[in-house]
């Protein structure tokens, strides 16, 4: 695995945010999922082989603060727009996973010029009570990994503490990421995105792991039905909610092919 370049950018809320960058070519911005990016994943390595990958940290996720100042959706959208601009990623292709995909969709709806093409991996944002999205904030400890990944070992490895990290601080960082996700998504993940999907003009790829236990794969159709522009759905066999951890190559290849 290669090591990304790391820089800090100043944002109006939360002070500094970490931006990881690797690769050359047309820029591609990635917004991470429920735990953010505690480490550089194989998925981004694969993308960086063909593209210049820019991965800014969302407020409250590893590498950034400031989520506790964001009270409503307008605050989140503004914070992410500020972040994209500071990271030099505004107007690039935008790829998001899970909670990051939710924000990517909001950005594409509120600010069409900020997104060229859009790839969403298992976004939250819709809620159908006949097939409800799982409550990821009400899990016993033993339930977390199998809920989020088809292969729990992938999840454990992604979240494993780095050698030099203080154990308590590592836990606090993880819990802060969970809190940031909850701050945006609690209690069902629906912040009214259904009313804005038609505003998304960017060609959009919807990628889902077939074994997603959090946002069922059938939600791809619900998103597709509401989107305004060109839409493509790709299902990746055997992957769970954090599909980019379960199947990094398959997900990266689907994204690269769509964004070409």
């Amino acid at each position: 695995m290669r090591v990304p370049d790391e820089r800090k950018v100043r944002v109006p809320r939360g002070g500094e945010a970490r931006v990881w960058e690797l690769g050359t070519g047309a820029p591609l911005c990635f917004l991470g999922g429920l735990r953010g990016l505690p480490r550089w994943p194989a998925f981004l390595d694969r993308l960086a082989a063909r593209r210049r990958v820019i991965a800014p940290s969302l407020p409250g996720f590893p590498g950034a603060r400031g989520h506790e100042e964001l009270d409503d959706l307008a605050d989140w959208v503004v914070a992410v727009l500020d972040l994209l601009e500071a990271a030099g990623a505004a107007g690039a292709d935008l790829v998001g996973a899970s909670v990051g995909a939710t924000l990517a969709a909001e950005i594409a709806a509120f600010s069409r010029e900020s997104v060229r093409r859009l790839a969403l991996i298992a976004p939250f944002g819709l809620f159908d009570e006949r097939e409800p999205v799982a409550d990821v904030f009400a899990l016993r400890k033993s339930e977390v990994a199998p809920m989020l990944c088809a292969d729990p070992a992938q999840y454990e490895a992604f979240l494993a503490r780095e050698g030099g990290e203080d154990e308590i601080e590592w836990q606090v960082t993880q819990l802060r990421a969970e809190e940031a996700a909850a701050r945006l998504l609690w209690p069902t993940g629906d912040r009214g995105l259904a009313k804005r999907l038609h505003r998304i003009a960017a060609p959009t790829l919807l990628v889902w792991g077939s074994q997603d236990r959090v946002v069922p794969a059938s939600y791809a159709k619900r998103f597709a039905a509401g989107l305004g522009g060109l839409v493509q759905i790709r299902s990746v066999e055997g992957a769970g909610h954090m599909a980019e951890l379960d199947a990094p190559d398959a997900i990266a290849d689907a994204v690269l092919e769509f964004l070409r």
Partner: protein
Amino acid sequence: MKLLWFHLMPYTRLPEDFAERHPSVWVDIDSRLFDPALAHGMYNEFMDELEHAAEVGFDGVCVNEHHQNAYGLMPSPNLIAASLARRTRDAALVVMGNSLALYNPPVRVAEEMAMLDCISGGRLVAGFPVGTPMDTCFAYGQNPSQLRQRYHEAHDLIVKAWTEPSPFAWNGRFHKLRYVNVWPRPLQKPHPPIWIPGGGSVETWRWCAERDYVYSYLSYFGYKLGKATMQGFWQEMARLGKEPNPYRAGFLQFVGVAETRAEAMELYRGPAEYFYGRCLHVDARYAAPPGYSSEATLRARVQSQVVQAAQRASSERQASAGPRFEDIVEQGYVIIGSPDEVADQLRQVATDLRVGQLMLLLQFGDMDRQLTMHNSELFAKRVMPQLRGLWDDQWENHWWPRPLPPPLRAAVRERARA
């Protein structure tokens, strides 16, 4: 010392195999277990018990708020307190409390508590809990990451609504109100005493000290485990230069009194095992939503072995059939014995923990009215006199209601039955 009688109002007919067959007493408890006709009886027995406690001489009666919870049948403690305001005369009405972030707008709390204070002639204690994760985040859908921010804003708004003489505009972070002008106003000035039920967080202690509020630790696990928390509280008060007035502190203790310890073991075994086995059968998935605890508390808690041990112990025990009564007593969750034995232990507890506002849980689990009243009477007649004088010679209770003098109190018409 003040001795207060606390009711949780537990549903008393959970099935014997409840803990094995159901994941949680709270949040997603099976509604088919609730029989409204039985609840009719329970509510009326519970209210009898509270009124009886006031009659036999307890200084105050306490009620609290829970939602979607089979051990706490009071989503609205204010309803019960309203009835108690009419059916009691001198006892303090301690509403332990209203979870402030759940009320929109929060002036609703200011209004209802002002009503209670007026109806009762100034006997209200206003309890302001944040509320448990189960009540606030899961049952009432509050965002755990915003809960404390909303709680603090609601607090500031309520206190201002009680004390500001003119209408004012509130342009808060979460609440916008163009005309705040609470009507009725509380009888007690500047407002009823405010007590904060809390866990063991340093921020809460500091906040109580800063505002000069009573901190009360409503533990289900008795004085032995409560001691670390109360010591932490007093160390923080000392650090902040606050005088160690025991009336700054409240503590909840389960108690069962009988003629002898052997008899108490027999009488209170069932109710205690029911409470710790069935009522505290809480699913861990609802206990710690992200953001409910501050990062400072997380850091402290991760390091605090006592708290960790308590949580682990309780969750392990609840996973099985629940703890045996011998263990419950041994661990100090419930204090039992003859009146003299109970008085000795409670004097020790109050002194060790430095508590002036001692709240007693004399009904717990499925204890029936007869045994509850027996427990209350023995306590009032033979335990209370032995504890009464504690602290009073040295400390003044600045946090007690100041009701109207008796000649100014409204007469309550006796027995209006229709």
